[in-house]
């Protein structure tokens, strides 16, 4: 059993004492001393305010922090938790901090949390991001309640954020996942989610945990499993988008995310090939109405990088892209940075052709993914320059248009997918 290697005797000991629970909140950590106290406080406030009658447990799965994160979780004082809350948990609130074993990475932390959820027969599970201080008790409750009260299996967060923010999501992952899986999910990369015990059991049965996908791409994989399985999914407004500063360099991060997205699409091909168009997911809690500022953008710098890098990548791109696409891109790169307009149809064709190349394995897969990075910068730079001063609604409409373009061209992807050697 997978659980045998995931659970330490100490954790098992704790779980025996905890027994069955109604709500389990998991927090994977790695050196989060700066934010973890706020996260723990929010969890306890959520337990007290919204689930005072429920059997609850907070499980912190730590990847070997050397900044005292586990101790901060264990020693969160009463002042940090219940006495500050208006309400009061009727039951004992359990709090466990435990190291996970095996390869470092969020995958093993999540596996440990899910194993604990399965053993404690948690009715509802929420996994939180320890790296942010903006999580609220209301946000946590909104991840739990649809599972606990409405029998949803998977709850994805929706953040209130400016449409120009997070271009890797808005330009690539969101529209690609939407077109492929046929579900209009806004934050497929979110590190937070809520889920049912049924979904937990399903995830634990998958052979992903010891793979690269499990190590670096677990968030997107979880989303993909939820959308591709027979699970009831919904979205919920949680809070303004957390301001995080990734510790991973852009190139590496881009590679991890796109590799994960392509790997997921490969795993779930039998599901998404049969899907046409897209459906919205129910929004169980409306988005907070707070206003958000547009991020400071510098599209020109990105398009200039695109134009420069494209010249150097010709030989790498030739086996990946069709002649038409490559020609169009080459012409685009010949223009001055400020005149580059990387249109939706060309961008979608680019992404789909990269996906097909990834599937065919025309070269080492990490090289394929890396080669997409400058093109992504070109597309993003083009978009940012075009919409940097546009009203939010106009940017939203442009993003919606992009998503529809991904959907419109999906038949071409499917057609070539079928022809691709496996």
């Amino acid at each position, binding site marked *: 059993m997978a659980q045998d290697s995931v659970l330490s005797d100490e954790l098992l000991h*704790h779980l*025996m004492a905890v027994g069955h629970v109604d709500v389990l909140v998991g927090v994977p950590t790695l050196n989060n001393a700066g934010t973890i106290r706020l996260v723990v406080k929010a969890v306890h406030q959520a337990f007290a305010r919204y689930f*005072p009658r429920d059997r609850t447990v907070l499980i912190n799965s730590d990847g070997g922090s050397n900044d005292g994160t586990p101790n901060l979780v264990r020693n969160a004082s009463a002042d940090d938790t219940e006495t500050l809350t208006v*309400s009061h*948990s*009727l*039951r*004992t609130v359990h709090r466990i901090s435990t190291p996970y074993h095996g390869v470092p990475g969020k995958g093993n932390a999540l596996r440990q949390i899910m194993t604990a959820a399965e053993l404690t027969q948690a009715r509802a599970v929420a996994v939180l991001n320890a790296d942010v201080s903006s999580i609220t008790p209301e946000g946590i409750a909104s991840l739990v309640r649809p599972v606990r009260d409405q029998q949803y299996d998977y709850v994805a967060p929706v953040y209130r954020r400016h449409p120009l923010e997070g271009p890797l999501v808005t330009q690539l992952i969101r529209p690609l996942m939407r077109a492929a899986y046929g579900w209009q999910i806004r934050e497929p990369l979110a590190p937070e989610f809520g889920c049912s015990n049924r979904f937990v059991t399903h995830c634990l049965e998958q052979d992903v945990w010891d793979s690269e996908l499990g190590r670096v791409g677990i968030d997107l994989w979880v989303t993909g499993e939820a959308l591709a399985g027979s699970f009831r999914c919904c979205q919920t407004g949680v809070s303004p988008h957390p301001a995080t500063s990734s510790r991973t360099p852009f190139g590496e991060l881009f590679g991890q995310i796109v590799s994960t997205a392509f790997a997921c699409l490969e795993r779930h091909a039998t599901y998404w090939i049969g899907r046409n168009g897209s459906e919205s997911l129910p929004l169980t809690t409306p988005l907070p109405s707070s206003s958000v500022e547009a991020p400071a953008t510098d599209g020109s710098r990105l398009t200039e990088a695109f134009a420069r890098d494209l010249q150097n990548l010709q030989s790498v791109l030739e086996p990946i892209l069709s002649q038409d696409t490559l020609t169009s891109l080459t012409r685009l790169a010949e223009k001055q940075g400020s005149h580059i307009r990387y249109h939706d149809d060309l961008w979608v064709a680019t992404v789909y052709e990269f996906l097909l190349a990834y599937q065919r394995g025309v070269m080492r897969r990490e090289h394929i993914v890396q080669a997409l990075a400058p093109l992504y910068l070109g597309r993003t730079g083009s978009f940012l320059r075009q919409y940097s001063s546009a009203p939010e609604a106009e940017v939203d409409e442009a993003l919606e248009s992009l998503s529809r373009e991904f959907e419109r061209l999906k038949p071409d992807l499917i057609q070539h997918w079928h022809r691709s050697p496996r």
Partner: protein
Amino acid sequence: MSSPLPLSVPAPQPLWYKDAVIYQLHVKTFADSNGDGIGDFKGLSSKLDYLTDLGVSCLWLLPMYPSPFRDDGYDIADYYSIHPSYGTLDDFREFLDAAHARRLRVVTELMLNHTSDQHAWFKEARSSRDNPRRDWYVWSDTDDRYSGVRIIFVDIERSNWAWDPESKAYYWHRFFSHQPDLNYDNPAVRDEMWNVMKFWLGLGVDGFRVDAVPYLIERENTTCEGLPETHDVIKFLRTQLDAHFPDRMLLAEANQPELVRSYFGDGDEFHMAFHFPLMTRMFMAVRLEDRKPLVEVIERTPEIPETCQWGIFLRNHDELTLEMVTDVERAYMIDEYAHDPVARIYLGIRRRLAPLLDGDRRRIELMNGMLMSMPGSPIIYYGDEIGMGDNIYLGDRNGVRTPMQWSGGWNAGFSTTDPERLAQPVISNPLFGYQAVNVESQKRSEHSLLNWMRRLIAVRKSSPVFSRGSTTFLKPANHRVLAYLRTLDKEQVLCVYNLSSSAQAVELDLQSLAGALPIEMFGRSLFPRIGELSYMLTLGPYAFFWFKLRRF
């Protein structure tokens, strides 16, 4: 040889109430000797051997005074005699002597705060504004004095003022409008109440359960509850009591957790007070299967003077009050214990112990086990020792005041009258009815609840550690297990309870007790000696252990 004490006065035994196991009963519904359908003192006297055999050491009688019975006797019409339906003063004296002869103490009710509107004092007071008794009650020409003071019976009363058409003025009442509050700003009222107490103490009564303590004095811009002047009245009565009847006891009914400590004063007000929050949280803990509410409430319980004691209980003659819990807690208790809206009354639940626990013998035992080992003097409500049921359709709280079920025969053995004439109908449903639940049949079964309760009380009384010892909670990781150590001098008892419906394993940190040998107090079974490592125990659903810790 010194001369023997009068029969009706037990040998002086200071602090007897700290070791008492109290049995609360209603004369009206306990035993009827003359076949009129109403219990009486002769009937009660005939059942004293039963109570002695049960092992209780003190009887608390619900009101026995003449009364129009619009509040089940809490509306007193005469403080100096016995309600004729219950017998005569001589019958009461005989009962008191018989109880004392069996070493049973007797505590009666004292309603300080209000009388019935049928009391002669109130009749005089309302007869004219000039009547000398007028100032014995609280009057006003308007109904806006003391505005904002809460109304206790919110389901029934709309105001704390009622209009008296006779004297054309409003009178103050914190309870029902037929129960006018006495005016303790008038020293004559205070003095008269001491006369009332002297009368009964002189007969041999061992103490009073004092009703509605916080409400004696009213002041503008206050809650009119627990005011300093109210404490002055209590101190006056206590001083008199100590001076004239030194080993008698006063028990306060005051249920506001934040104020109740104050009624002990510096040991110069009440000897005892009810621990209402503990009662609520015992029910909550068992339903939640989590010790948290119990541990919290005990740890928050303030220290009380050495000569004082808590009165602890599971159920009584009133509703299971949820007045002093949070909204979240109240909603939980209502949802879990009062599915049927008819079971709800005021801010509480009008059910007896056994129906509250779905007749589950294991939970009834668990709750009684906790009651008997918690810090305080336990109070058993009549009939709960056999698991009697209730009738929530009888109106007000009458459903928990039905006749004691002595046998499966005529009227449950309570009375020989026609069933239609009974003061209250007997419980007759298939689950809790008298044919299924009665003293006679339970006496015959070694494993009946009644006989189990006898053993429980006997074990409780076998060690003063339960009544006078300190309490230290152990907090094992398993929250479904409640464990605490009772300690008195060198004597120690370890109490461990499984609050859940499933078997539980628990590891107790007993390092400080290493070397002690646990002896289970019911079966006297030896358990493994406590060592340096965690002490492992497994408990079946709702099971509990009391271990006497010995060193050999």
